[in-house]
């Protein structure tokens, strides 16, 4: 091979690749709305993204699979945890993870910032990214089912949708605050106390580290029936 041919290989290889990449980039932007719903990015989503950056969340958590691998992926966190769980975890991690083997720093996130963060994570969770991460797809499906066909929702779906961020049942959900099977065995509350506990835990047990749940009394009733049925 002559030097001239080698030079031709260099320029041809480079320019072909640049041309393909430029064309794909143009097309990526053309289809951005369909995949990322960019028109739904409002001021609060942007504010939430700034909160995400401000507290350097992305160096412990991955999002879209990128970032630190130290803490769970946040792409579908909105569906996995739900709004009230995200807010309570972010605002008082030292309580939520008091007994956990892994801690999250208390970053001093304000209530307004936490609310914006939820908006950002909600938008993110709706990016059409071919059902990644695989382990969170069940939460996405469950949330969509709850929204679209509430009549088809099974009781366990409701319970895990609301409580699965901290409690587990039959190997579903996250076991931070105990498995429902075990909790139910030791529980001595009646139905009415249990409902009151969910809506405001400290009014029943002043030592509780469970955050107040943002659910209707009806939903709390369904969850209470479910837990009591496990006794």
């Amino acid at each position: 091979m002559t030097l001239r041919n080698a030079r031709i290989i260099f320029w041809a290889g480079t320019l072909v690749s640049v041309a393909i990449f430029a064309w794909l980039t143009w097309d990526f932007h053309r289809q951005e709305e369909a995949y990322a719903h960019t028109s739904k990015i409002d001021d609060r989503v942007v504010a939430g993204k700034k909160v995400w950056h401000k507290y350097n969340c992305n160096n412990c958590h991955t999002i879209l699979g990128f970032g630190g691998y130290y803490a769970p992926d946040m792409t579908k966190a909105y569906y996995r945890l739900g709004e009230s769980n995200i807010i309570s975890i972010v605002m008082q991690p030292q309580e939520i993870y008091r007994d956990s083997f892994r801690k999250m720093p208390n970053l001093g996130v304000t209530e307004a910032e936490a609310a914006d963060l939820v908006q950002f994570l909600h938008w993110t969770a709706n990016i059409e990214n071919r059902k990644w991460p695989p382990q969170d797809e069940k939460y996405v499906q469950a949330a969509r089912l709850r929204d679209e066909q509430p009549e088809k929702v099974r009781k366990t779906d409701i319970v895990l949708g609301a409580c699965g961020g901290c409690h587990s049942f039959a190997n579903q959900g996250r076991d931070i605050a105990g498995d429902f099977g075990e909790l139910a065995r030791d529980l001595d509350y009646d139905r009415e106390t249990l409902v009151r506990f969910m809506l405001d835990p400290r009014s029943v047990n002043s030592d509780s580290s469970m955050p107040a749940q943002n659910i209707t009394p009806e939903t709390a009733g369904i969850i209470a029936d479910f837990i009591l049925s496990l006794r």
Partner: protein
Amino acid sequence: MTIEYQSQKVALPYMQLSLVLFILQVVLGLWLAANYAFTLPQGLVDMLSFATTRAIHTNLLVAWMLLGFMGGAYFILPAECERELHSTKIAWLQLILFAAAAVAAVVGFLFGWTQGKPLLEIPVPLDLVIVVAALLFLYNILMTVLRAEKRSVLQWMLVGGVLFLALMYLFGIPFYSSLNADYYYWWWVIHLWVEGAWELITAAIIAFIILRVTGVERKVVEKWLYVETGLFLFTGIVGTGHHYYWIGAPDYWLWWGGIFSALEPLPILLMVVDTWLHIRERKNPIVNRLIWIYIVGLALYHFVGAGVWGFIHTLPPINYYTHGSQITVSHGHMAFFGAYALLNLTVFYFAMPQFKGIEKYDAKAGHWGFWTMGVSMFFLCLVFGVAGILQVYLERFLDIGYMTAHMSMMFWFKTAIVLGLVFLAGAITTVYHLFTLRPAMQTA
């Protein structure tokens, strides 16, 4: 062997600072592993979080790599252009600006001053200082090359690589309101650096060192250089697509990204072949065995870490499960060490004896350093790989949750700390050796 041009001396402080940052980076890496291996108390986590430490660990990596490249370029260009550098004053000013920005960034991270984007945490005002430093560097090397009598492929490949590197950095600076576009362009910095611009710089630098060390014909080396860099860019640019599988982008990325990135190991394999050929057909005697070991080690480790380890999980059906797990950590460490840490150390072992005018140096500590680092890093990556496979299997196949998966990793990260300490010992030995090079005893 001594330096041929006085202005080459300006490369020395770049290399020394680079080596100091290397050690710091390893120390912080050990602290990160401890975060995985043990349950740290809340008070400590509040004070110095994993996120802050990781930002410092990765930024130190980038800083010592870039300092090494810049020092390497300043060392090589006078010899390659057969003239002094355009200005050593500019080189000093650039070094001071760069170092000041790096120190300010690290202190800033400790106090929460961050842009909050992984690897690109440096806040915009400091970005601007770095841009100024980069412009000074570009101006300096361009003037050196433009005013040279001699023209070579190697000069232009080096300058082109640096220009490409600087240009891509700009895409990481703005705020993107869409996360999906944010990460689209984030990879223009990260991927097009490590699988584009940095490969050009590596190829050019290593071509120069091979020329000088083995004494093979320039025409042959430059031909290989063209073909390799051409293949690097051909596969690497569209290969960026292997990061776009799960970000919310059209389906064709699975094909373009998958096929092109599957080809990415080819140019590295070519590098292994040409290094081997050049060494076999060497015209010069082997004076310092260590530099030859580094050249071969770089080629092989580059291929294993970046090529093989990257290929393992680059295809979409596999990547769906392994993306964003400790498997990426394994690949990242193996590739950065194999390709770029070893490149910089090769350059330092080529250049640093020359500053002292040493022909043949006492290399005992250097050999120990090389093998300790090389072996411990390999095992470290295997341990990360085991942790990653466990994580993927438990969390994504058995679906039993992140917590369980991560608890099973604690043992492997305790192992990682031990290996990390061995690596640190190797790194300190190497750096100590480079700082205290002595002529070898004459043994007839």
